[in-house]
């Protein structure tokens, strides 16, 4: 049921529990990024090819080996989808958290600048967000390419 509450709606609760500051931000972001990764990992593991697991069993793999050699790599592409979704949600949550409930940070800077009509600072914070988002997505893409290099869709022609 917690999953169905929009994590941003938890902001007032978290503010009351943790106060304004870093802890509240971290908690809110954890809340926002946990479920996409969790759901995709769950989905990935559930849909690992059963025939491969059967093969592993006939070849005498123990539970740890089954996980390490078959289940985890088999779920990896789904896990990476979760990671990339979560990266997007991470920046979104950070902006909201910093705008509403922070004493420092880029979002705080932008909100402050709005009060004083400092358009240049507002623009600067937008550019920083854009850069951070692009960089993190790029890095995630690189990691994905590396981990899933066996997959024909990720191989160079």
């Amino acid at each position: 049921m917690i999953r169905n509450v929009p994590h941003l709606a938890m902001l007032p609760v978290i503010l009351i529990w943790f106060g304004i500051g870093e802890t509240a931000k971290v908690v809110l972001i954890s809340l926002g990024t946990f479920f996409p990764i969790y759901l995709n990992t769950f989905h990935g593991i559930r849909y690992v090819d059963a025939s491969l697991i059967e093969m592993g069993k006939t070849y005498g793999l123990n539970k740890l080996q089954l996980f390490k050699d078959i289940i985890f790599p088999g779920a990896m592409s789904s896990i990476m989808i979760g990671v990339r979704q979560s990266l997007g949600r991470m920046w979104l949550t950070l902006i909201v958290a910093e705008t509403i409930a922070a004493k420092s940070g880029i979002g705080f800077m932008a909100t402050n600048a709005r009060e004083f009509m400092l358009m240049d600072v507002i623009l600067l914070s937008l550019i920083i967000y854009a850069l951070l988002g692009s960089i993190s997505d790029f890095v995630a893409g690189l990691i994905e390419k590396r981990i899933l290099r066996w997959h024909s869709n990720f191989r160079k022609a």
Partner: protein
Amino acid sequence: MSKNVNAFEIQVKNLSKFFGDIQVLKNINLTVEQGKFVALVGHSGCGKSTLLQLISNLETPTQGQITLNDAPVNKINPAVRYLFQEARLLPWKTVWENVAIGSNDRSKEKAIRALQEVNLDNKAEEWPAVLSGGQKQRVSLARALAGEPKLLLLDEPLGALDALTRINMQSLIEKLWKEQGFTVVLVTHDVSEAVYLADRVVLIEDGKIAMDEKITLARPRVKDSNFAYFEKKILDKVMKNDDVGEIANEVYVI
């Protein structure tokens, strides 16, 4: 043929298997001597694959017992290797890493040696995705051989291959079996393939052994009139209890 004393003798005694209320195998008794090549043929759903799964301990018998060299089957035996209809290679491991799964210490050396036996050592560093269907099946054969099996269970491993690749695979399997002397049980619905490869063809029908025919042809086998005799004899028996005749006698009005 070099006699391998370490090959398994399979003894199946009074074996029955139920899936729910359906009895798939009915009181099967079968002995396969060490180093023999036995083919199980029959219609799909006759229970031949189930028998193979029971021998490999993928399933447990409802009644009766299976022994390998007098030891009852009650756990996965590393000396028994199973070849599936599909290659079932792990796409995230390279070819040699896949083969290494078959040997208990996962050594690259053994994997490469097994790949040499199927003439694929030049693909050792490739991903399985770039291989053709026949090559994948050869890799899975190498994976089975890497563990130096005493018994090889083949569950229609050639069923999904094209005709030319099949012929190559058949002679490859025959060659490796002669060299290494393990026992082989092959499940197939291709009677010709069974006659070509096996010392003995066992026909399973409706969960029971309906026919047990020794193929006395000399190896390497050629498809001459003697071959055709065995093929026809078995095929006739396979088709006899069928309603193929009835269908042929029906009158169609167009």
